């Protein structure tokens, strides 16, 4: 085999289109990172995973309320994103695309779960933060106030929780939330107001 080709097969230089010298990934823009990942740079996609992992996990935990399920969904979302990476336009923001994959997986999970916890059909009843068990997630919440906050969010009925999580964790606009959940914009207003009221009531000693 030709020496040039041999060099191309080596781990040090995984792809001919990627710079030979190791670049500081922190200094690169998201678009550059995605282009590198599309060209086969393993480090670049690893860096992208680390950039978005925490935010995505928090979001999905908020939706599915189970840490274990959320963990699986997040992993699967990254894998699907990687498999479809070549079709992604690098000039677009990456996270919304990734979050959309994860959201779809999460909603499929909820619908498959047999709990009939479809997000816009669940009743308001059953809001009891004391009964919520955070499980392994408890270790990720350094102080008691955070634990109480997450427990209260997890205990929200699904239709309020979805709106709250999309707004607070994902920072989606009201219009986008309405469009995504297929509910009128006015309903987003009232559900978010109701969700915040419940949380404020429960956490009033901390506010």
């Amino acid at each position, binding site marked *: 085999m030709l020496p040039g080709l041999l060099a191309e097969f080596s781990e040090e230089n995984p792809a001919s289109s990627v710079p030979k010298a190791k670049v500081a990934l922190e200094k690169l823009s998201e678009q550059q990172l995605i282009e590198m990942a599309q060209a086969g740079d393993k480090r670049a996609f690893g860096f992208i995973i680390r950039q978005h992992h925490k935010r995505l996990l928090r979001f999905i935990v908020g939706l599915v309320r189970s840490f274990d399920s959320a963990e699986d969904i997040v*992993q699967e979302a990254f894998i699907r994103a990687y498999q479809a990476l070549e079709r992604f336009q690098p000039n677009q923001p990456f996270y919304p695309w990734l979050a959309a994959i994860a959201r779809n997986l999460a909603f499929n999970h909820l619908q498959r779960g047999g709990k009939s916890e479809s997000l816009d059909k669940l009743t308001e009843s059953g809001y009891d933060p004391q009964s919520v068990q955070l499980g392994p997630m408890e270790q990720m919440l350094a102080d008691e106030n955070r634990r109480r906050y997450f427990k209260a969010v997890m205990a929200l009925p699904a239709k309020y929780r979805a709106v709250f999580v999309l707004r607070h964790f994902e920072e989606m606009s009201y219009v986008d939330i309405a469009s995504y959940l297929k509910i009128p914009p006015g309903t987003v207003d009232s559900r978010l107001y109701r969700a915040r009221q419940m949380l404020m009531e429960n956490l009033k000693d901390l506010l």
Partner: protein
Amino acid sequence: MDDAWYRDRLSAYADNQLPLDERQAVEEHLARNAESRAILEQIVRFKQFADAHGDLDDTEYFEESARAIEQRLGLIDQPKIAHIARPRYAGLGWKIAAVAASIAVLTFIGLHTDQIGQMLRSSPTDQMSETPRPGRATDQARQFREQPAPTGQPAPAESAAAIDITTDEAQKHNKVEASRLSGPIDEDSRAAASGGAGEVPPQSVPESADSEKPAVQKVPEIYSDRVAVDPDRRKVAAAAPKLERVPEHTDSAPVKRAEKKTERTSAGEQSQTGPLDQLSQAAQALTKRGQDVSATHSLIESLPKPADSGPVESEQSMDVWRARRDSLLPIYLVMTRDTSVSGRHAVEAAAKARLNTGEYSLPEVERELLDCWYNIARRSPAPAERDEARAALASYSQRQAAHHARIAQDRLRMLDSLRTEEQK
């Protein structure tokens, strides 16, 4: 608009998400309603609290989890599945000695059943039976003598042991036979041992290829210890170089899906039914949902061993790649045939138990297979085998469910460019 309408809009107002007309209406309402102003203050305070307490902390967890994702994607090195030269023969010497001794005794009995029977019937033991020496001739021996000796079948070992100490003549005879058996065993003896004495566990086969092997029936090790290893090829496997990991890179256009049936061929010869077909047929049995782990386990056990790929090729590492491919392919086929979640987990659990690896999943198997196919397609001295491996790679790259389709496409391009270089 009543107070409830205004209250519902307070959250949106705090988030600056109201259209202009509604925003003006809410501001007018707030100017004249103290209760709504108090609620708005609470909402703003709550937003600040939520922003300050909405983060997760455990960076160690996220690092571990990110690494797990990278492993699943094959972005970082992971433990090899096919550890061919794994030291697993602790205490082998004793096992070999025990097996050899058992075979020697059973072979002797199998070969000399008639003589033993005659000896027992006509030897002085008949006379001695009238006045047995206390503590020497046992009841078992007497029972044995009274029965006609079976022909063509080995005598029970405990009876033989009883005979062994009955008479001086018999002792002499046994010594002669024992010395005879300590030498190399001829083919007849082997046949008798394998036919009459039963099977010997394949784990007992010694690793070193001595010229004087005990009469052990060659039981094929189907995917044993991750690789189907012919005992004669163990040395090759043990001396194999470290396997090369080929990086994936470059983007590629999506390839249209087309089913290609690959048929395995040995160097120059076309096999009648390729192992891929056999394994595929066997794996189809897994399409039923709800099979438990043990059933899956037994199915994996019963998968046919891929045909022997023939003599060792000029490059030793080819054997290693072939062995790895043959060990992984059935697992891959089993895993991909059953798409039900429970079935998939059962299969993975069974495969994990079978291969005794800590981390084991379908993407990992696919990744390993890609390496095998690529290296065979690149290095095999047999053109037919090269084409077959390339066809397998192409077929995999077109699978919709393939985890590493892009990598496969990259490698196909690498092979093409290599071929072009060679032609030049």
